């Protein structure tokens, strides 16, 4: 982006083209991100965006924003979203549908599960290079922990710890079956 000046800066990027997606799974959906690396003007604005489109019964693995707050606006369809705060409390456990807005504060863990035919959303994030960390999956925090930390932390056997670490090979999107979500925790 060094060659760009304020006057000639590119200001537009399309996030709806699945061929430009960062994560694409034909049966599950796609996720595209826009940050200061692919749109340098965002360095000035200190903002970035994420576009998601997932199909019925696809799940975005639980994750949190490392360095940003996010405003999530649903553009199409509906999903069940659970969000957990720093006290381990479920602070959001509802269906969210087209036209609704949800704020996802920094560090709060969030899971999205499409329940309509399709769930599409746009997230605006308050950091030009917003990062997420996932709880489950191939690039998750659990994969990065030694087995000994997991076995001692949760008092589970090494075999169970291996399953926790390695059973999910996806990074972002996975299949999930229709389920009941349990009662909200006080």
């Amino acid at each position, binding site marked *: 982006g060094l060659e760009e000046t304020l006057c000639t800066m590119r200001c537009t990027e399309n996030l709806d083209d699945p061929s430009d997606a960062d994560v694409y799974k034909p049966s599950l959906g796609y996720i595209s991100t826009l940050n200061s690396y692919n749109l340098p003007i965002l360095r000035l604005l200190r903002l970035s965006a994420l576009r998601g489109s997932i199909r019925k019964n696809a*799940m975005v*693995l*639980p994750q*949190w*924003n*490392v*360095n940003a*707050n996010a405003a999530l606006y649903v553009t199409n369809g509906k999903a069940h979203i*659970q969000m*957990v*705060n*720093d*006290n*381990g*409390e*479920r602070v959001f456990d509802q269906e969210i549908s087209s036209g609704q807005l949800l704020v996802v*504060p*920094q*560090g709060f*863990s969030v*899971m999205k*599960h499409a329940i309509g035919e399709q769930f599409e959303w746009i997230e605006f994030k*308050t*950091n030009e290079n917003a*990062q*997420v*960390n*996932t*709880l*489950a*999956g191939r*690039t998750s*925090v*659990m*994969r*990065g*922990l*030694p*087995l*000994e*930390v*997991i076995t*001692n*932390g*949760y*008092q*589970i056997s090494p075999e*169970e710890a291996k*399953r*926790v670490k390695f*059973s*999910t090979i996806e990074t972002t999107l*996975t299949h*999930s*079956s229709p*389920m*009941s*979500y*349990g009662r909200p*925790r006080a």
Partner: protein
Amino acid sequence: QWPNECQLDQLNALEPSQIIKSEGGRIEVWDHHAPQLRCSGFAFERFVIEPQGLFLPTFLNAGKLTFVVHGRGLMGRVIPGCAETFMESPVFGEGQGQGQSQGFRDMHQKVEHLRCGDTIATPSGVAQWFYNNGNEPLILVAAADLASNQNQLDRNLRPFLIAGNNPQGQEWLQGRKQQKQNNIFNGFAPEILAQAFKINVETAQQLQNQQDNRGNIVKVNGPFGVIRPPLRRGEGGQQPHEIAN
């Protein structure tokens, strides 16, 4: 956020205002609402981790610097998107399939040895754990910069627990009713965790640490054999083997 937060007429030395006790140690927290801390934007903590104590993975809403005051130990940070670069070589020649699972033990992100004087920088949102593999308490002090752009919440120190819990709650959070602080898995329905991790619901419930009163620093019984590099020269009184070029 507070217009007159730096009108300081008098400064004084500060002591911790809350001590969070756990099975394997304690965490001492300074009141970051004290005028001079609030003005500077710092939150300050001291960790005392007993031998064989494991401070369970936790991340913060702010970047922090940690200094090793006493003792030695191990430290791991899980940085999003980084590969598991510490791994044991698979054992070959045991037959395919079965041999692969027998030969494989573990792989994880980088683990570092800690000793007195080490200073560790940790960005916000990056999970970190410590283990005391010495014979003396491992004492760490940490300063988190709540006023930086890394923290986009309010000026409160907010530890997010990935494992364990804090039965005493976060007394330093004004306006929140005092209650036990649980780990973040506790807020998700076990069925969701089971699907996300592709495990059974019973194991998912174990991840929530609901029946666990050990706190956030637990005692490790038995060996703690994480894959880690040998000690650096001069650490722990051991010298590495000289290897000729």
